[in-house]
C-alpha cells in the first residue's frame, strides 16, 4: 500500500479501463480495477479505495444493484458511469447512495473534476458535521438556520432553507429531486417534484445575480440539482 489516493474502477471493457488508468496514474492516483461485481466487492474489502468509479453495465450483476451492496460495505464516494440509454438508472443509482454520475462518452478532465469533488466529500465523512458552509459570496449557517451574503442576512422561508441546506451538505454533488423532496417536505410528498422547481425558482431569485445563468443553484435535467461552490 502506498500513500497515494486510490481509485477503484469497475469496468468490464478492458480498453476503457486502460485509458482511464493511464490518465489517472499520470495525475498521481493509484488505480485498482475490477471487471465485474464480485471482484468489485472483493477489491472494496481488501483495498479500501478512496473513490469508486462504477459502470452501470456490468456482465455479472446489474450495476444498479451493486450500489446498495457497496454502500453496505463502505462510505467511499461512488461515481456511476452510464450510457445515455440508462438515464433512468442514473437517478435510481443516485437515490440508492451513489454520489455523482458521468455519462458516456465523457472527457478525462470531466472525470478528474468529479473525482476531486468526490474526494472532498470523502474528507468530510467521519469528521464532525459542518455547521457552516460557504459558497461564492454566501455563508450558510446550518445551526442558526441563517444565510449571509458577506455580512448581510438573506431572508429565506423554512422550505427554501431546507432545500438549500440539503444541497449544501453535499457541495458540488448532484442531489436528486426525490432526495430534495424527502429532506424538505418529508417522504409523503414523492410525487410533487413540481414544488421543488417552484421553490428553487424563488431561491434562485434571492441568490443568483443572473437567475437565467445560475452560478450556484444548477439544474441537472432529469436528475436533480447541484450546488456549485466554485466561482
Amino acid at each position, binding site marked *: 500500500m502506498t500513500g497515494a489516493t486510490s481509485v477503484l474502477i469497475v469496468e468490464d471493457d478492458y480498453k476503457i479501463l486502460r485509458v482511464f488508468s493511464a490518465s489517472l496514474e499520470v495525475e498521481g492516483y493509484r488505480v485498482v480495477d475490477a471487471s465485474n461485481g464480485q471482484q468489485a466487492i472483493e477489491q472494496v474489502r481488501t483495498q479500501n479505495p478512496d473513490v469508486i468509479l462504477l459502470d452501470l453495465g456490468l456482465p455479472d450483476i446489474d450495476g444498479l444493484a451493486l450500489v446498495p451492496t457497496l454502500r453496505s460495505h463502505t462510505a467511499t464516494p461512488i461515481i456511476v458511469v452510464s450510457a*445515455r440509454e440508462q*438515464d*433512468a438508472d442514473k437517478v435510481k443509482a443516485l437515490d440508492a447512495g451513489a454520489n455523482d454520475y458521468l455519462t458516456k*462518452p465523457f*472527457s478525462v478532465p470531466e472525470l478528474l473534476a468529479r473525482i476531486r469533488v468526490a474526494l472532498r466529500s470523502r474528507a468530510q465523512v467521519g469528521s464532525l458535521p459542518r455547521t457552516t458552509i460557504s459558497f461564492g459570496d454566501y455563508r450558510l449557517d446550518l445551526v442558526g438556520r441563517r444565510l449571509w451574503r458577506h455580512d448581510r442576512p438573506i*431572508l429565506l*422561508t*423554512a*422550505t*427554501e432553507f431546507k432545500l438549500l441546506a440539503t444541497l449544501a451538505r453535499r457541495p458540488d454533488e448532484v442531489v436528486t429531486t426525490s432526495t430534495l423532496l424527502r429532506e424538505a417536505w418529508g417522504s409523503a410528498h414523492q410525487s*410533487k*417534484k*413540481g*414544488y421543488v*422547481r*417552484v*421553490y*428553487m*425558482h*424563488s431561491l434562485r431569485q434571492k441568490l443568483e445575480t443572473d*437567475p*437565467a*445563468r*445560475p452560478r450556484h443553484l*444548477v*439544474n*441537472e*435535467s*432529469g436528475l436533480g440539482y447541484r450546488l456549485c461552490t466554485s466561482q
Partner: protein
Amino acid sequence: MAKRVRARGGPATRCLLGIATAAAATLLALWLGGRHDLTNTVIGYLFAIALVSMGLGYRSAVLAAVTSALCFDYFFLPPYGSLNINTGRDWATELSMFGVAVVVSSLNERLRRQACAARLSERRMESLYGLVKDLADAHSMSDLLTAGLRQMESAAAVAARILPLDGKNGFRSVIFADGQGDPTGDDLISATWVADHLQPAGRGMRDLSEAEDCFLPLLAERGCVGVLAIRPLETTSDADLRPSSLLQTMARQMAMAIERILLSEEKRAAQIEAETEQIRNAVLCSVSHDLRTPLTVITSASSTLVEHGNRLKSPVRAEMSRLIYEEAQRLGALLKSLLDVTRLQAGRLRVNRDWESLEEVVASVLRHVDARTGQAKWRLRSYLASDLPPVEIDAVLIEQVLLNLVDNALSHAKTDLPIEISISAQDGNDVLIAVTDHGQGIRDDELTLIFDKFYRTHGDSGSGLGLGLTLAQGIVASHGGKIWATPTPGGGLTVQFTLPITGAGPTNLEEEALEGERARAR
C-alpha cells in the same frame, strides 16, 4: 260503459276489473230496460267484453264473457232471477253471445300480441342500430368498449362490463361504461374459464352458477377477444337470469367491432415496423458518408501517432490529438441524433413528463452551449416572461429540442448578432418558445422542408445529418405542441414551438409568503 284501462296492475286486479265491467254493463242494461230489447242488450254486453279484451287482456275478457253470459241468463232471459233457460231460441242467444265474446277476445288478443312483438322488435332494432352506429364511430379500443357498454346498459336493465383479452398478457383491465379498473380475482377466474371453454358461464348458466354475474365470451373470427360480464339490475326469477337474445346479439356485434379495432391496431404496428425498417435503410445509405468522414480523420490521425509518434514535432502531435478528439466528439453527436430519431420514429421514445420550469430548461441549455462553444456569452440571450406557468414536459427532451434549435442557429446564421431564446405564455393554453437568429435566413420554400428527415438547406455544407429539426418536431408533437419556422423580420430565421399548458401546476404557497413577511416583521 267501463273506462278503458291499460293492461297494467296485477292479474287479479285485472280479472276483477273484467268482472266489474260485465256487472256494470248488466246494471246499465237493467236500468235502460234491456229485458224488452234483448238484441241491444246482447250487443251492449259484446261491446263491454270487446273493451275489456282490448284494455285488460284475454283472461279478463273470458271472465267478463262468462260473467256476462251468467248475468244475461239470470237477469234478462225468462224466467228472470233464475239460471234456467226454457226455450231453444234463448239457448241460441245465450250461446252465440258467449261464442262471439270469446272469438272477439281471442282476435283482440292476437292483435295485441302482434303489436307487442312489433314494438319489441322495433326496440331491438333501435338498440342494435344505436350499437352498430356507436361501434362504427369509435376509433380507439376504449371508446369502442365504453360506447358498446353504454348501449347495452340502456337496452336492457343490466350493469355490464368487459374484460378485454390481450393475446399475450391475458386479462389486464376491466372496462365499465364509465371508466376502467383492475379486474378482481373472482372476475379473473370466471373470465379465464369462459375464454378457455368459449362458453357462457356464471349466474343462470350450467357452469360457475354461483357467480354473481353472467359471463359471455366475445367471440370473433380469431377466437375470444374478451369477456362480457352482465349483472341484472333488478333481481328476477332464475329463468330471466340468462342474458336476453338481444344482449347476445349485441355481444356478437361488440366482438366483431373489437376485432376490427385490433386489426387496425395491428396494421398500424406493422406500418410502424415497416417504416422503422425504411428509416433504417435510408439512414444506412445516406449516413454512411457522414459517419465515414470523422472516422477517416480519427483513423488516419491516430495511425500516424502510432506509427510515427516519436518522430513528429510536438505541435504536430498535439494537432493530431486535437483532431482525434474533435472528430470523435462529432461522431458521437452524429450517432446520438441518429439513435434519437430512430427511436422517435419507432415510437420508442419514452416521454417522462413532470412539472418542470422552462426557466431551468433554458438555464441548462445556456450552460451547455456556453461550456461547449466557449463563445462569448452575449451570443446567446434569453428573454423569459416573468409569469411563465410550470408546464408538464419531459425536461430532458425539451432541452434537446432547444439545443438543436440553438445549434442550428449558431452554425447556420453566419453572423455575430446574438441568438435569442424567448418564451411567453399565450392565451392561457400554450407556452410559445422561439429561437431567433439574425443571419441570412433560408428560402421560403424551405420553411417546411427543413423539418424533413435528412433535409439540408440549400448550400449547407455543415456537419449535421439533417435530423435535428426532425427530432425537434417529433419531440414537440409527442408533447402535444406544434413547431414551425418563419423568417425573422429584417433577415434571419425564427423557429417557434408551442407546449400546451395542461392545467394548474404547483404554485408557491401563499403560506410561505406570509411566513416570510412575518419573519420580516419580527
